């Protein structure tokens, strides 16, 4: 396998698509040793935007569509949809929750898994900061979830990898993640069905699981390098689509320029 060279194209930004983009970059890097892509750790979507605006990068990743003001002079190109799922720690046996239960858990009304048919263990709630995209998706999509205040005992993760680490560390915990981040983590964490609907590419495509996040690339068209163009072309290629689907994502058609 070709290793990323020192002058490889770096695609900074959001943590949610980090896992799937790493998989895409890995598949892309074997095609041409002269064109290499590297996916650095999360700098959040805002970091990706800043890198493009300040010409610190030619291509960045975001997990939400930039506002009109943020996107001035930039091109936003969505490439996949990823489900946002509730995830539980390894000791939790519960695999399905209703929307109201979820709201009660995160607000601190339900504190024991035993009340939900699980073991007699405290529910460790892990949330994201309020600006974070997966939280926004859930707040927007789950009515009871929309207005709750999180339990004062809840821990706050500021990156996907922090969420994964906390879920992994505390076996009776519950949090939420993008499905691709969960798959890429290779842990014994488990996704929950919501109101009986499991999140996968099919339910996303059918719309039966509506809680999805959109991943996109941002760039200034005039500054795109040959490698960046090739990488974008690869993401929208058949091979790129296969990688996305294998990560549980729904590939999106390429929007015309």
């Amino acid at each position, binding site marked *: 396998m070709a290793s990323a060279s020192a002058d490889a194209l770096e695609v900074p930004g959001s943590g949610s698509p980090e896992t799937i983009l790493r998989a895409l970059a890995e598949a892309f890097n074997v095609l041409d040793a002269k064109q290499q892509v590297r996916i650095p750790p999360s700098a959040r979507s805002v970091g990706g935007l*800043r890198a493009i605006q300040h010409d610190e990068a030619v291509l960045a990743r975001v997990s939400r569509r930039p506002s009109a003001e943020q996107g001035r002079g930039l091109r936003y190109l969505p490439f996949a949809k990823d489900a946002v799922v509730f995830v539980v720690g390894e000791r939790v046996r519960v695999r399905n929750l209703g929307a109201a239960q979820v709201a009660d858990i995160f607000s601190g009304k339900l504190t024991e898994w035993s009340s939900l048919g699980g073991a007699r263990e405290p529910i460790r709630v892990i949330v994201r*900061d309020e600006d974070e995209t997966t939280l926004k998706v859930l707040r927007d999509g789950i009515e009871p979830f929309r207005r709750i205040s999180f339990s004062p005992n809840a821990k706050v993760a500021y990156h996907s990898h922090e969420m994964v680490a906390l879920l992994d560390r505390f076996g009776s915990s519950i949090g939420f993640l993008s499905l691709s981040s969960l798959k890429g983590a290779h842990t014994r964490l488990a996704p929950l069905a919501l109101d009986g609907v499991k999140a996968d590419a099919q339910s996303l495509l059918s719309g039966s699981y509506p809680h999805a996040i959109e991943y996109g690339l941002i760039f200034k068209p005039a500054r795109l390098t040959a490698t960046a163009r090739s990488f974008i072309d690869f993401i929208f290629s058949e091979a790129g689509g296969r990688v996305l689907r294998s990560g549980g994502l729904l590939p999106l058609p390429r929007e015309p320029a």
Partner: protein
Amino acid sequence: LRSRLSLGFVILGVLLLVALIAVAAAYLVNVRAMHDVLMAKEFEKARSIGDIVELYLKEEVEKLETLAQGLKRDVELTALLKRYDATGEGRDDIVRLMADLFPDLPDVTVFELADRRARIVYRAQQPPLFGDTPGTWGIAEALAGKRVSVVAHGPDGLSLRVSAPIMAGSRIIGVITVGFSIDNRFATEVARHTRTGISFASERAVLASSLPPAERGRISLGLVKRAFAEDRPQFVGDEDSRTTTAYTVRNLIDETFGIVVQMDSQASYEQLRANESLLVRLSIGISLFALVLGALLTFAVIRPLRRLQLRAEETVRTIFGEAAPRRGGNEIDSLAVSLNTMTDKLLAHVKDLAHAKEVAVAASEAKSMFLANMSHEIRTPMNGVLGMTDLLLNTELDPRQRRYAETVRSSGDLLLNIINDILDFSKIEARKVTLENIPFRLRETVEEAVQAFARAADAKGLELACEIDTQAPDTVRGDPMRLRQIINNLIGNAIKFTERGEVIVKVQARALVAERMTLEISVRDTGIGIEPAVRERIFDAFSQADGSTTRRYGGTGLGLAIVRQLTHMMGGEVQVESEPGKGSTFRCTVQLALAHGEAAPDSIPARASLHGARVLVVDDHAASREILEHQLSAQGMVVATAASGAAALATLASAKQPFDILLLDVHMPEMDGIELARLVRAEPRWGAVRIAMLSSVRDDAPASLREELGIACWLTKPVRQSALLGCVHDALGISAGAAAQGAPLDDRAERAAAGTAGGSLRLKILLVEDNPINSEMALAMLGSFYCRTTVAENGRQALDALARESFDIVLMDCQMPGMDGFEATAVIRRKEAGGGRRTPIIALTAHAMDGDEARCLAAGMDDYLAKPFSLGALRAKLTRWANAPD
């Protein structure tokens, strides 16, 4: 307000301003760069402090873990808890034991024991919560079997806790927790390690701080939130307190904190101030240097500018007699004012000059017209004077009357020459003369010019000789008339100022380049010479060597000026070498074009070769001898020379081969040519030799003498080459032809006519002339040729006369009242075009300006005779046209 501010001050001001702006820009950029460097240093410092905090916490966690590990293996505690787990009894013992242990735990503020159901059994900190299950993070996880460290939000606030399971065999019977509160005390302890102010914050609140309450209030939660949102540090510098506050985000253990680090930046700010101070000093130094350099440069620029300004003002004053107006402003303004004033005045001056030129041109044209008119007006009476004098001289006169008449004639000739000179000079000066460019025979033209002075030279007893370079081309292109005028003026001048000796004319072809040749004509005399002081002036108009010269020798002094003008027009120049009392040599050059294959008028037929013929030249005059030798040698003849009759006889006697021809000068001291010829003829062995004689014009041997001595031909000095060669040919019997064939028809006819002035022509002439004097004179002249003449007073009368009868020749005046000569000629020619006989028409006109002859010929006339004309000239013209074929 326009003060007279020197340009120097303006330039200096601008330079200073530019320097200040540049220095200020450099200063600002440098200060900003220094700030950036300072911030980068502070950033590194903040990061390393974050690392220190993280490390400190890890060490603290390790300490707690060690403690927890030790406590969970405490045998007494395990035994008591085991009993309590089994029976629910013995809690007091447990509490007592825990209370005993607690003071010995360094820095621990959180000390708890929970049973296997996560209920609090002992708690050192408040509230005690005995029997509660507060759900604090870590206890349940420890009950699951592993030691866990956690940052927990509990009823006692935020704390760092390490919980470890207490085992009874393989069974977990409880959890021991040690830790400490993350509070101000903890923050102060951390700050002690980092030597900074440290605060721990969430997005919503400051959780713990080492800062005094007053400073704690200055922590910005907005910047904490921004640090969280942007995931990168934020910095705030406070120059007053010389501190920098960094807002960073760190994940410690399992919690993300905003860490606010207040750093003492005294040293950095001092460094910044020192650098700024250095920058200020450097800026001032650079500005001063730029000022001095600018002053030097300005001085270097302004000094010549000021000189130029003064010069311009002085020029205005000098040329126009007044100073340029001063309107303030700097040197360039003043210079501009001076130059504008000068330009305005010069333009006005140029306008005046243009007007003056127009006036001058008009005056010049008026002068030319005046000259033309005067020429005509003077020539008309002169025609009467000279013509009548000619007629008078043909009558019976006593010696005194003849002398008087001849004086009138010569004075008239002189006056005519003067008029001609003035007219020529004026025309050339007025650039009214254009040179012709026609093929002509060079040799003949030169020889004719020289020949014309034969009488004058002879009259003064001067030897006049001419030598033409044998390499000179026969035919060239140029203006033969003006070339002849040059030669005429030079020879006339030489003869005039030479009392005795010789005048030698030499013509040499010099450079031949690209179908053009330079002809050098030199005229050497043995006359009075020219003083060096006046040599430069003699080519100026109306200038002779001195005033007495004019009085003594006469003349206008225009001849040489005309020569110089003509040579310049012909692309050459004229020079003089002279030695007072010994003579002068005038040397002039002219440019002529070669005329290959072009036939010149009156060309001489090619002659047979004279190569190898032997000739003896006998002449006492060395120059003549040399010229003859040169001319004959050039033809391939074998030439011997002798300076006297005796020497000639000796040469003849000693010759191994007999000579074919003897060329004898008539006038020689001791033994003249005639006597020598007699002696030669007396000697039988020289009987076959041909004899040719050379004489001056005045000599004319009787035909009987020529026959007696067997003289083959008689040449007149100066000898023209064509005549010489013709003579030699004739003498040797190589080619039949006239001895004087080289002479042009006009010249021959004129001389013949002069010689036989009263000869009969018996022609029928129509004289068209309105001037009664001219008419009478012409009638008298024609009468002397026994011509029958009808007079018409204008063109119309002429036409009437021609309608009545035919004439041999028409003599036509040009300017007449009614119908002038040009119009009358045109009518005559139109009528003749109908098939009638063409009557020769000769123009008689006092219009001697250039172009007159061409105008006459264009009108249909056949020839041209300028007034005043001589009897001989008239006869020559009549003879020529009387004999011309129809």
